Structures are given as C-alpha cells and as structure tokens.
C-alpha cells in the first residue's frame, strides 16, 4: 500500500541546533500512527515540516505520492491536512467561538450574509458550545470568554475541538491531551477513534504510553531528530517502546515494520 503522507531525509537546523537529522516518515491510509520520543527529539518539528509551518532545509514530502513542499500552513490546510499544534495556535484576545471558526466563519443567511457579510454569531457560539460539550468540557461558563482567560486544559480543548470540527484528509494532533483531565482525555481518544472510523488517518504525538498503545495502529519512535523505528503495538510492549525511545535498548530491524 502507498503511504498517504510520507517524507524522506528531512533536515532542519536552527543555527547551532539540529532539530531534524535526515528524518523519514510514513503515514498509511486510514491508520492511527502514534509518534513518540523524548522531549526535544524533534517530533513537533517533524509534523510542522509536514504541514508547512516549518520549511525544512533538505528532504522531500509527498502527499498521496506527489511531491508537495508546503511553504505555509494554509497550503497544507487547503490540501486537507488539519493540525492541532502543541502551542495550540489560538489568538489569546479572541473569544472561544472566534477562535474555533477563525478563517472559516459562518455567515448569516440571506442578504445580511451575502451583501453585508454579517457573521452568524449565534450559530457559531452554539456549535462551539456543542463541540466543547462533546469533549466533556463542562466548566466553560461563558462561551464568549477570551481564550487567554481559559484554564490550560480548557484552552487545549478548544484547539482539539477546532481540528475535530473540520475533518479532512489527514488530522495531526501534537500532544492533544497533555493539559487535559482524565475525562477530557478519554473523550479525545474516543474522538480520534471516531475520526479513524470516518476513514481519515491520524498522526498522534503523545507521551502517554497507555493511551498510545490503546489507540495506535503503528508507533513511530523518534530519537535524536530521526526515525529510529516503527513498531507494531501488538507485537511490542510499552516497556520496549520506552526503552527504544530513551536509548536504553536499540531495536533490531524494526524500521522495516
């Protein structure tokens, strides 16, 4: 089977720092691919390169077999790649619903919408509230609150809800549950399985091993800026995965997986 999204030999250097060191990557259609690795291994840089937020110094990226070097995130989004960034990419002073619909606002029906281009505040707020409730985020009292006034977890919920609301060709989630509570994390996992059911492949970056091993079809282990191995979570234990990613053990021939 052809990978839907793949990369070969990605390199990214920042001055004296090397973030990606000839990294490879493959995402198969319809799968949940987990990416794990130490802090600073280069996971976020990798996915930022995939979706155009970072321009790699070397290497090539293919979407459905075609070379596609995105130079900005808009291009990736238009190509159907939706991303939850680790730093969330929310506008602090804007409200929750403004943030959820940024760049895809809903306009009023009729003349007000087509001529006066008036936004349908009510509809956006309602949909935002629904999406958040789906995630189990029941503590948000005021839906027109500025995002900067939300708690860390509420903020992350908004970012996840946004990506989930606009399903597309590939969904990338960089540590979507890091700040979330037990209940909210569980809902995100359910949501990921939901998205998969719709046939959309997902890249999930996470440090939570039980979660990773629960939902992932394959696990990409990243170490020191490159892909160390790809393992099958049914064949390897969590301990193996952790040992590989921290350098305690070296995987054998696992790259071919």
């Amino acid at each position: 089977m052809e990978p839907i999204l793949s990369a070969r030999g990605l390199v990214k250097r920042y001055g004296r720092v090397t973030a990606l060191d000839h990294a490879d990557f493959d995402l198969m259609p319809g799968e949940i691919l987990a990416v794990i690795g130490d802090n600073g291994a280069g996971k976020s840089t990798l996915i930022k390169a995939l979706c155009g937020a970072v321009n790699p110094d070397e290497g090539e990226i293919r979407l459905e077999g075609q070379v596609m070097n995105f130079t900005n995130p808009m291009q990736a989004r238009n190509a159907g790649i939706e991303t939850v960034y680790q730093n969330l990419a929310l506008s602090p002073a804007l409200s929750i619903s403004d943030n959820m619909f940024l760049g895809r606002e809903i306009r009023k029906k009729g003349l007000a919408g087509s001529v006066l281009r008036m936004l349908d505040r009510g509809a956006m707020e309602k949909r935002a509230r629904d999406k958040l409730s789906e995630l189990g985020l029941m503590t948000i009292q005021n839906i027109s609150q500025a995002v900067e006034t939300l708690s860390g977890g509420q903020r992350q919920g908004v970012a996840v809800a946004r990506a989930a609301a606009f399903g597309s060709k590939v969904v990338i989630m960089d540590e979507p549950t890091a700040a979330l509570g037990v209940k909210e994390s569980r809902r995100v996992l359910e949501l990921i399985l939901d998205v998969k059911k719709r046939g959309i492949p997902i890249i999930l970056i996470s440090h939570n091993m039980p979660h990773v091993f629960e939902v992932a079809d394959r696990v990409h282990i990243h170490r020191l800026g490159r892909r160390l191995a790809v393992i099958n979570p049914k064949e390897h234990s969590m301990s193996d995965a952790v040992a590989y990613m921290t350098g305690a053990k070296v995987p054998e021939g696992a790259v071919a997986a």
Partner: protein
Amino acid sequence: MSQPQEFEKVLTGSVTTVAQFEDHKSGLKRLQHFLHSSPAMVPLIVLLALILFFGIAKGEKFFSAYTLTLIMQQVAVVGILAAAQTLVVLTAGIDLAIGVIMVLSFVIMGNMVVSYGMPAGVALIAGFLVAGFCGWVNGFLVSKLKLPPFIVTLGTWNIIMAICLIYSENATMREADVTAATPWLHIFGISFKIGPAVVTLGVLAMIGLYVVLWYMLNYTAFGRHIYAVGDDPDAAELAGIRTSKVLTATYTLAGLIAGLAAWVSIGRNGSISPSTVVTDFNLQAITAAVIGGISLFGGRGSILGVLFGTLIVGVMSMGLNMLNADPQWKVLLTGVLIIGAVAIDQWIRKVSG
C-alpha cells in the same frame, strides 16, 4: 489494542451539565459587568466627565449645543485619520504616513479639477486611487518583505511628503478656484443647523465611518481577522488566516480612509494647501487611538473607544481654550489632562475588574 486503564472506566457516570454559579446582582455589580464586557464605554465615561467638568467651569458657554458641535467639526478630519490609524494599530502596526497620504490625496483631487479641468468624479477617483495605492505599498512592504511597520511608514512618509511637495510645487489652491471648478469637492463642508447645533456633512461622514468600521470589525470575518493578526500573527497564520493578505488589505483600507479624510478636509478648509504635510496628524491620530483604549501592541481595543478618544482630545483643547489659557500654558495643561484622562480610564477599568 489494549484497554483503557481501570480508573477511566468510571467516567460514564460523570456530570454533563455546563457549570453555573448563582449570580448576586447588585446595581454596582451590574455596572461593573457592563463595563467589563464593553470596555469602549470607559472612554465615554471619561468624555462625559470632562464635558461636565468644563461645563461646570465655564457654564453655558461651553455646555451649549453650538460649542459641542463645533468641537465635532474641529475633530472630524483627525477623527477619520484616527479610525484609519486604529485599523493599522489593531494589526500591531503603525502608520506614520497616514497624514501625508491624505495631503497627497487632496492635492491630487484639487489639481485634477483646478489645473487639468477634469470633472469632480474623476478627480475624486484619482485621489482615492492614489491614497489606496500608497496604503497598498505600505501593506506590501510590511506583509511581503516583513519589514517593521514603523520603518516602512517612516520611509513612505518621507517619500510621499517629498512627492507631494515636488509635484505640487508647493502651490496653494484657493477656495475660489476650486469652487469655480466644481462644488463637489466642498460637499463635506455643507452645514445645517438643528436649533443652535451646527452639523456639517464632514461630521456625519466621520460618525458614519465609525459605525461602518465598528460593524466591520465586529460582525465580519475580515474584522475578526484583523484582530487575530494583531493579537498573535503566528497563531493566526497557523490557524489558517492568510496574514499577509489581511495586512495588505488593512493598510490599503487605511489609505482609502485617508482619501476620505482628504475630501472632508477640503470641505473644512476650503483651500488646498500642500504645506499641510508638516501638520502632526500622526501623533494626533495615534493619541486619539490610545486614549480610546487601543493597545499599541495590537489586537486589543474597540474602535468606538477611538471615537470617544478623538472627542476627548477635542473637548480638552476647546475647554482649555475657553479657560483663557495662553498657548504655552495650554500645552502644559494638555499634557496634564491627557495623563489625567487615561489615569481615570485605567482606574475605572481596574474597579470594574
């Protein structure tokens, strides 16, 4: 695939209602909440306080419909420029060229009718086109070359000022000559009386502009994008906004608004004088915006606040003038009042927390 961890299984029973707390609404609390959710009202309070202050000090002379409408006439041009400046400042930029764009625009409008004998429509279109083009150049340099807005507009300020002086040879066009050619350029000078109040079309244009921009900023996608870009450009870009388009559009729009200011200014002044380039419109416009509660760091503030900010400055200057201060003392008192007004503003915000 493994199973959820043990402790996650109890989640099915968790509560599914949105959190709510009882509200104890005393009158003061209500006011607080109102101010908290509509920060543009704070400068309005300061404005009213200031009017009251001068009204008490000078009595009817100040507190008359005539005086108050006169203040509106005096601030119309600066008010329009402040609106343009506000858009740019909301994107975390600054437009030092806005004043000279206006001057170049009215010089061109005037020259078209007086020197080249063009019809008023053509002259106006030319004026607006040039103003919009100047704005577009700023926007292009800021968004595509990623230069700091301060430097870009400092540069175009100089360039446009020089072009304006060289092109016009510094020649003033007299009101009589303009009027002889067309009445259209003076249309915003037309005034009508409602009792003692005198309202010019220029004042109405300013108020109309603020209403339109307020609508645009709050009820259209473009308006929200302006805020998003100024708030955190990286986040906006990642969230899928074409920041460079938004920036270019904003600066261009600011230029066009300067074109409107040019037209209104011809109406107010009658004659058309290129040496207006030296007038410090930038500082006045930025001051009005900041007093109105716009953050120079972008993304925060309401444009209605700027309208009140403009009026605050106008009321101050008229009030001081009626208090019979001589020009040097007026400068001093203006300084004191500016700080005072914003201090009160800040205090109200704090109390309404």
